[in-house]
């Protein structure tokens, strides 16, 4: 296989990251541009090109269509921020777990089983929650009515969990965790205000019509 055919095959493999409809319409054209931009004798895709293609493909998959009202686009950005906060929260919980556990025992020793439930739940559930935020952003960006309802349900859950966390003394043994939950609650509240705004209303359609 020649260098050129080899390189084209590698580029072609990277284009799989793009949405199918886009690939169907633009794959041949994009491959031409990528091959035109390649250096003589190049047979591998550089790191910068790989990163650029994957990032652009993910952006295209995740961003709201241009037809979405500004209120929905703003809400979708907030939901991606929610995913980022949840991810940061998960990383910080995993990294600081030993110190949080010892702080738990020192702070409110009698309630340590509840706190253990809290920390374990955070560690196990946050990756799922990150994916949940990404789905909420994607589906709300495409005007799925069910995604609006899902965000309200998630908001209600966090509204119940926050006082429970305060009750078991999270402010003492895991203040960062409590603050991130409060930030997530505010993000949800703002996103709900945006997607239930009058300007967003026409964009959402009943689930049975979608």
């Amino acid at each position, binding site marked *: 296989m020649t260098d050129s055919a080899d390189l084209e095959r590698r580029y072609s493999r990277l284009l799989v990251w793009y949405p199918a409809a886009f690939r169907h319409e633009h794959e041949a054209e994009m491959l031409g541009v990528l091959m035109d931009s390649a250096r003589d004798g190049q047979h591998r895709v550089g790191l910068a090109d790989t990163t650029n293609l994957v990032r652009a493909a993910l952006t295209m998959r995740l961003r709201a269509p*241009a037809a979405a009202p500004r209120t929905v686009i703003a809400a979708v950005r907030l939901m991606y921020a929610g995913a980022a906060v949840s991810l940061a929260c998960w990383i910080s919980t995993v990294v600081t777990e030993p110190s949080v556990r010892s702080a738990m025992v020192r702070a409110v020793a009698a309630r340590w089983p509840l706190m253990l439930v809290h920390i374990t739940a955070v560690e196990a559930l946050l990756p799922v929650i990150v994916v949940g935020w990404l789905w909420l952003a994607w589906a709300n960006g495409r005007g799925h009515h069910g995604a609006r309802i899902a965000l309200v349900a998630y908001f209600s859950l966090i509204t119940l969990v926050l006082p429970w966390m305060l009750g078991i003394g999270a402010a003492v043994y895991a203040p960062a965790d409590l603050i991130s939950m409060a930030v997530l609650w505010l993000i949800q509240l703002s996103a709900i205000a945006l997607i239930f705004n009058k300007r967003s209303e026409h964009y959402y359609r009943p689930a049975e019509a979608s």
Partner: protein
Amino acid sequence: MQETTFLILTALADTSQHGYGIMTAVGEISHGRVRMRAGTLYAALDRLSQEGLVAIDREEIVGNRLRRYYKLTAAGTKQLAAEATRLHANAIAALSRLKLAEGMAT
């Protein structure tokens, strides 16, 4: 308007261009400061097409490869002109104030 969008629309201002042509033109317009990659270009073209600012002009087959040419639409021309006028007015204001500042310092 983001700089990437501004540069792509500027590259298409006087003639239709294919993808590689746009990337080369963006490099020339920015005096080599911006090196646009294919991923960035096609994500931007997809968005600009959805917004009705660019459209496909024609297609050609060159050396067994598809070349698709893009052009500015009337809305794209209008938006680019408005943005260029805004940036020009800002630049004039900045330069004028800088001259004033130099005058006061000497």
